[in-house]
C-alpha cells in the first residue's frame, strides 16, 4: 500500500498525541487519587458513588446527633438520679419523723430538713441542658417549668417529647416529661389514698391499704364512718350509698370493692376516714403537706394521729415518686442502649459506605502506576519510531 508522505506525518503525530493523552489521563488519576473525575469516567457506578457520598454525609449528621443525644441523655440520667436521691432523703426524714419519742422541736427540725430538700428538688426540676434549655418542660424548653404560684408550685411546661434522629427513620426521645415525674404522682398506694379526716377527735388511724382484687375496683371514693363506738359504716361517697356495716375490731381488715384497709386505734364516734381513688399530687405539695403537719404543735392524741397520718400519706406519695423517678431513669437507660446500638450499626454502615466509595472512585495505585509505566513506554516508542521514520527520505541518497 502506498503511503502519502503528508498523511504519514500527520498520522504519526496523531499517534503520539493519542499515546500522550492516555498517559496524561493516567497521570491525572495518580495525582488526584481518583479514577472517576466526572460521571462519564464511570457511568455505571457514578450513581452509586453519588448515593454513597450522600449516605456518608447523612451518617455524619446522624453521628453528630448521636453524640448530642448522648450528652442530653447522660445529663437527664444523672438529673433523674439526683431527683431519686433527694426523694429517698425525704423518705428517710419522714421515717424519722414517725419516731414516737420526737417532740415538737424535733419535728420542726425534720420540717426544716424537708424544706431544704424541697428547694433542692425544685432546682433539679428546673435543670437546664448545656444549651440552656429546660430538661423537664417538654417543648416549652425556654419556659421555667416549675415555679412558685401562691402557696404551691405550678407547672409551666408541656408534655412534648423531643425526638432526635440518630439513624435513618429512627428518632430517640431526648427529654423526659416533668409533669408525670413531679406534678402527677399518684397518691397513697398508687391505686387509692387513705386519710384521716381533719375533724376527727379520736386517735384512730388508717393504713395505706392494698388492692386485693384489681378487677373489682370501681374507681369511686368511699368514707368509713364511725356511727357507733364499735360500728363502721362504709359509704360510697361517689354514689352516696351505704355499702356495709361492720363491727369495728381494731386492726381487722375491712374489705370491699376489691380493696382492703386496716383501721386501728380508738376512733371517736363521728370520726371519718376517707378512701379516694385515682388521686394525684405534686411532689412539692406533698412535701409542703408534711412540712406543715410537722410544724403543727402536737397537743392531743388526735393531733398526733393527724401528724402521723400526714407523714404516712406523704411517705406513700414519695415512694410513688421514687418509683416514677426510677422508672424514668431506667427508661433513659433503655434509650441509651438503643442509641448505642444505633451508633454501632451507623459506624458499621459508615465503614461499608466508605469502603464502597473508595472501591468505586479511588485509584488503585499499583495498577495505575504500572499502567502509567506502560503508557510511558508507548509514548517513548511512538516518539522514537516517528523520529526514525520521519527523517528517512530518498532525496538524502540522491547526490
Amino acid at each position, binding site marked *: 500500500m502506498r503511503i502519502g508522505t503528508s498523511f504519514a506525518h500527520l498520522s504519526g503525530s496523531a499517534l503520539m498525541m493519542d499515546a500522550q493523552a492516555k498517559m496524561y489521563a493516567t497521570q491525572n488519576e495518580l495525582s488526584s487519587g481518583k479514577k472517576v473525575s466526572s*460521571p462519564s469516567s464511570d457511568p455505571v457506578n457514578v450513581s452509586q458513588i*453519588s448515593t454513597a457520598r450522600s449516605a456518608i454525609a447523612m451518617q455524619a*449528621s446522624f453521628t453528630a446527633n448521636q453524640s448530642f443525644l448522648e450528652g442530653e441523655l447522660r445529663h437527664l440520667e444523672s438529673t433523674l438520679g439526683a431527683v431519686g436521691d433527694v426523694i429517698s432523703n425525704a423518705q428517710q426524714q419522714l421515717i424519722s419523723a414517725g419516731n414516737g419519742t420526737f417532740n415538737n422541736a424535733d419535728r420542726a427540725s425534720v420540717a426544716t430538713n424537708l424544706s431544704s430538700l424541697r428547694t433542692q428538688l425544685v432546682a433539679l426540676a428546673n435543670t437546664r441542658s448545656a444549651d440552656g434549655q429546660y430538661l423537664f418542660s417538654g417543648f416549652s424548653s425556654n419556659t421555667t417549668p416549675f415555679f412558685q404560684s401562691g402557696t404551691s408550685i405550678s407547672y409551666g411546661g408541656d408534655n412534648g417529647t423531643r425526638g432526635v434522629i440518630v439513624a435513618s427513620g429512627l428518632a430517640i426521645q431526648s427529654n423526659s416529661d416533668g409533669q408525670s415525674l413531679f406534678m402527677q404522682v399518684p397518691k397513697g398506694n398508687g391505686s387509692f389514698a387513705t386519710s384521716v379526716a381533719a375533724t376527727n377527735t379520736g386517735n384512730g388511724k388508717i393504713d395505706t391499704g392494698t388492692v386485693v382484687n384489681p378487677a373489682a375496683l370501681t374507681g369511686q371514693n368511699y368514707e368509713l364512718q364511725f356511727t357507733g363506738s364499735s360500728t363502721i359504716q362504709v359509704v360510697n361517697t361517689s354514689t352516696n350509698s351505704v355499702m356495709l356495716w361492720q363491727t369495728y375490731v381494731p386492726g381487722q381488715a375491712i374489705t370491699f370493692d376489691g380493696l382492703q384497709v386496716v383501721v386501728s386505734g380508738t376512733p371517736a364516734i363521728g370520726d371519718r376516714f376517707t378512701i379516694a381513688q385515682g388521686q394525684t399530687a405534686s411532689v412539692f405539695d406533698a412535701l409542703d403537706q408534711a412540712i406543715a403537719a410537722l410544724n403543727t404543735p402536737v397537743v392531743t392524741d388526735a393531733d398526733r394521729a393527724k401528724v402521723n397520718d400526714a407523714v404516712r400519706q406523704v411517705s406513700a406519695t414519695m415512694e410513688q415518686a421514687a418509683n416514677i423517678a426510677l422508672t424514668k431513669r431506667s427508661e433513659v437507660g433503655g434509650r441509651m442502649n438503643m442509641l448505642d446500638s444505633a451508633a454501632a450499626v451507623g459506624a458499621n454502615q459508615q465503614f461499608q459506605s466508605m469502603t464502597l466509595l473508595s472501591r468505586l472512585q479511588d485509584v488503585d495505585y499499583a495498577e495505575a502506576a504500572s499502567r502509567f509505566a506502560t503508557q510511558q513506554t508507548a509514548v517513548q516508542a511512538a516518539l522514537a519510531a516517528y523520529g526514525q521514520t520521519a527523517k528517512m527520505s530518498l532525496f538524502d541518497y540522491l547526490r
Partner: protein
Amino acid sequence: MTLLSVGASGLAAAYAAINATSHNISNVNTPGYSKQQAVQTNMPGQFSGAGFIGRGVAVETIRRAYSDQINAQVQFTQSQSAEASAQSTLMKAVDKLFAVDDIGVGAAMDQFFTSLTEASSRPADMAARGAVISSGQGLSTRLNQTVGLLDEQGRNVDLGIRATVSQINTLAQKIGRLNDAIALGQGTGQIPNDLLDQRDEMLRQLNEQVGVSTLAQSDGSLNVFLSSGIALVMGNTPAPLSISFDPADPQRQLVGVRSTSASGNGDITLSASSLSGGALAGQMKFRDINLVDAKNELGRLATAIAAQFNAVHVGGTNMYGATGTSLFTLPSPVAYPSSLNTGSGAVSVAVSTSSAIKPSDYRIDFDGTNYAITRLQDGSQTVTAGLPATVDGLTISLAGTPNPGDSFQLQPVRNAAAGLQMGFTDPKLLAFGQSNAVGDNRNALLLAQIADQTVLGGLTFAQAFGEITAKVGTVTQGLEISASINDKLSQQALADQSSVSGVNLDEEAANLIRYQQAYQASAKVIAAAQTIFQTLLDMGR
C-alpha cells in the same frame, strides 16, 4: 526529420512528467491535493514498406490519482466524525458540571439535609437554624449556578451555530464559484484537476460543518443538498442558510432557509433530527437534546425539592408563632403559545403532584376537537377532548379559545433550577414546631425525614441525583465512544485516500530520476540526430 521530432516528443513528454512530479512535490502538504501524473501514450507509427515506424510519444492528459468512492467515504466519515466530536466536546463540559465532588449539586443537597437533621435535634438553637438557612441557600445557589453555566454554554453554542452557518454559507459560495470555473474548464475537453481537488476540499470542509450529498451535472458542476433534501448549492448559485427564532419557543434560535415570500411562511427550518453529520448537527443535537435534558433534570429536582419541603414546612409553626411560609420559591412554569397561532388560547401549567413529574418539555396541538399533549423527551402522547387535564403530575389549563392548528409549548420544569430561591433568610421563620413552644421539633423531624423518603419517581432525592449523574455520564461516554469510533473511521478513510491520492516524496524522487533520465536520453536522441545530420552534411562537403 523524424528522428528529431521523436526525440523532441520524448523531451516534451519527460518535461511534462517532470513538471507533474514537481507539481506533486510542491503540493505534498496541500490539503485535498491528489497526486497528478502525465499520461503518456505512444504515437501511432508511420507506415513504410518496412512496417510502422514509431513516431515517438505524446502526453495524452494530466490525470489525478483519484477514487470517487474513497473520496465520498472521506467526506461522509469526516462529516460523522465532526458531528460526534462537536456534540461530545460540548457534552464533556456538562459532564464536568455534574462531577460528583465536594462542591457539586449533590454535595450541596447533602449539606442541606444534614443541617436539617442536626437542627431538628435542637430546634431552639439559632446557630443550627442559621446553618439550615445557609445550606438551603447553598443548595439553591448551586442549582442556580449550574443552570447558569448550562445557559452560558447554550449561548455559546448559539454563537457557535452562527459561526458554523456563516462558514457553511462561505463554503457554499466558494463551491458555486468553483462549479462555474470547472464547467468552463471542462469545456476545453480536458479535466481541470486542480479545480476539482479544490472543490473536493471545499466539500470536505463543508461536510465537516454540515452533512451534504451531491449530484453531478453533465457540465461538471455539482449540486449540493442538505440531508433533508434542501438545496444548498445549485450550479453556481448558493442558497444561504439563515438564523431565525422558533415560533414555538422564542428563546430558541433556529437555522433555516429563508423563503422569498414576505410572510415567512415558506421558511424551511432545520431540526437537529433532520440533520446528519457535521458540526452543525452536533451543536444542534447538543443544544436541543442534551442541554434541555440536563436543565429539565435539574429543574425537576428543584421543583420536587421545593414542593416536598414546602408541603411540610407550611404545616408547621415558626418561632414567631405563625404558620410556616414557603421554604423555597420557584419561578412559574413556562407555557408559550406558538407565534403562528391564530386563536386567543393561552395555556398555563402548574405542578399538582411533584413526585410524578417528568424531566421533559411538552407540546400541545389543537386540531379543532382534541388537544394532543406530547411529551417531547420521548414522544409519548396523551389526547384529551378538553382542558384542564392532568398529565405526568402537571395540571394544564386553558384560557381563551384556540383555533384548529394552534400549538403551545410547555416548559414545566426547565427554568425551575435556575430560579430556585430560599423563601426567607430569617432563621426564626423556620417552622420547626407544631405549636408555639420553641422546643417543639415535630415539624423539623418531618422536614429532616424527607431525605429518606421516595419523593421522585420512587427514588429519594440522593438517589434521584445519582440517577441524573448516571444519565449524564452514560450520554457523555456514549458520545465519546461514538466520536472516537467515527474518528477512527475517518482516519481509515483518510489513509485509504492517501494511499490512492497522496503524494509520496520517495516515489516522486524516484519518478524525478526516472523522468530526468528519460529527458537526458531523449536529449541524447536529438544529439544523435544532430550527429547523423552533421555526418550527412559532412558527406556533402
